[in-house]
């Protein structure tokens, strides 16, 4: 991931979320974007953000109690169950932060950052293996054969028009709330 950054990007220090290689209060803000669910101990990582930041903590994450969108409710519910276990609940996360504010971050119809819900209005994209490989839920999926079977159902529904009959209006929506949340804390 580091090697894919363009020239001129911010400096990178490789370290563990639970043991940031920074002294106390050495950065203005600590930020994590769709990252907590990859940490072996997210609470320890949040504690480290609080330790190194002087002013703000910003966590962009997903509320695993939020209603799922069509992909994860109708086709990949079993995989979404597995994925949800990796995230803290919003209540758990808020408990670890002083005076947090939570803001819903809608997913635009033409979102350029291909995380799981980014293609909610472009369903065919989920059939592209390269698109899926850039999403951790698929890159780490425990049962690739079952993923393929689930996606065949989507492919069938797209071909028959069944998907459009149920969700076609999404193709023209501006955005949806898929449970992505920005949690900010001023220190």
């Amino acid at each position, binding site marked *: *991931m580091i090697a894919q950054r363009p020239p001129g990007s911010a400096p990178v220090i490789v370290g563990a979320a639970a*043991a940031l290689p920074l002294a106390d209060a050495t950065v203005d803000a600590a*930020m994590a*974007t769709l990252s907590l669910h990859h940490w072996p101990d997210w609470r320890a990582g949040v504690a480290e*953000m609080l330790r190194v930041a002087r002013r703000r903590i910003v966590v962009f994450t997903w509320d695993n109690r939020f209603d799922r969108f069509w992909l994860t409710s109708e086709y990949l519910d079993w995989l979404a169950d597995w994925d949800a276990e990796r995230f803290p609940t919003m209540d758990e996360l808020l408990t670890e932060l002083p005076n947090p504010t939570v803001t819903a971050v809608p997913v635009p119809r033409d979102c350029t950052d291909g*995380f799981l819900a980014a293609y909610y209005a472009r369903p065919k994209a989920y059939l592209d293996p390269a698109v899926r490989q850039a999403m*951790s839920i698929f890159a780490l999926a425990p049962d690739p054969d079952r993923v393929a079977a689930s996606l065949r159902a989507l492919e069938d529904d797209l071909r028959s028009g069944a998907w459009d009959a149920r969700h076609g209006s999404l193709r023209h929506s501006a*955005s949806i709330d898929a449970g992505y949340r*920005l949690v900010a804390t001023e220190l």
Partner: protein
Amino acid sequence: MVVDPALTLGRLHAAQQEFYAGGQDGPLREVLCPDIAWHVPGASDIAGIYVGVDEVLAYFARRRDLADRTFQMQPAELLSGDGEHVATITHGQATIAGRREAWSTVGLYRLRGDRVAECRLLAFDQTEFDRIWTRRPEHTPPGHPDPAVYDRIGSGYTRHRQPDRRIAAAIHAGLGDRAPSSTWGRGRAPTSRPTGA
């Protein structure tokens, strides 16, 4: 004294081969200048600038140990001109962590007399070289990122994970910025700010 660079590099490569296979370091000491500087760019476990014979030998030993004495070098073309620098294309292979690996480099050497004064190791594919020469522990120690996870996610981000300007704006607002930065990187964070984790 004019020394044929091919002879000096031939001695160096023979000495390296012997050492990587588990041999002694005597022949290497004979071909390296006392102030030898060995540059290994990149982000792998072996990246760094090694100065002096002892540091360079420790670097060779690290490569030998990472490859468990399976490291083999195949020197190919030698390119030389009028100056003190010569370059060799070298193909390497080794079994590292149970996996057969192969890579190619240009070694850009500066020679002094019949010894090597400096080397810059320039990989054909630096990203691949870094991957090959970075050790992945079988068991993740507590408090360290799980390398298995980070090896398995994050592919194709250049194409499929471009920052979205509207989500960027929301994140900037959370950070207390007045306006979104216009310079966003391809990672998961604005290029204008260092990020942890």
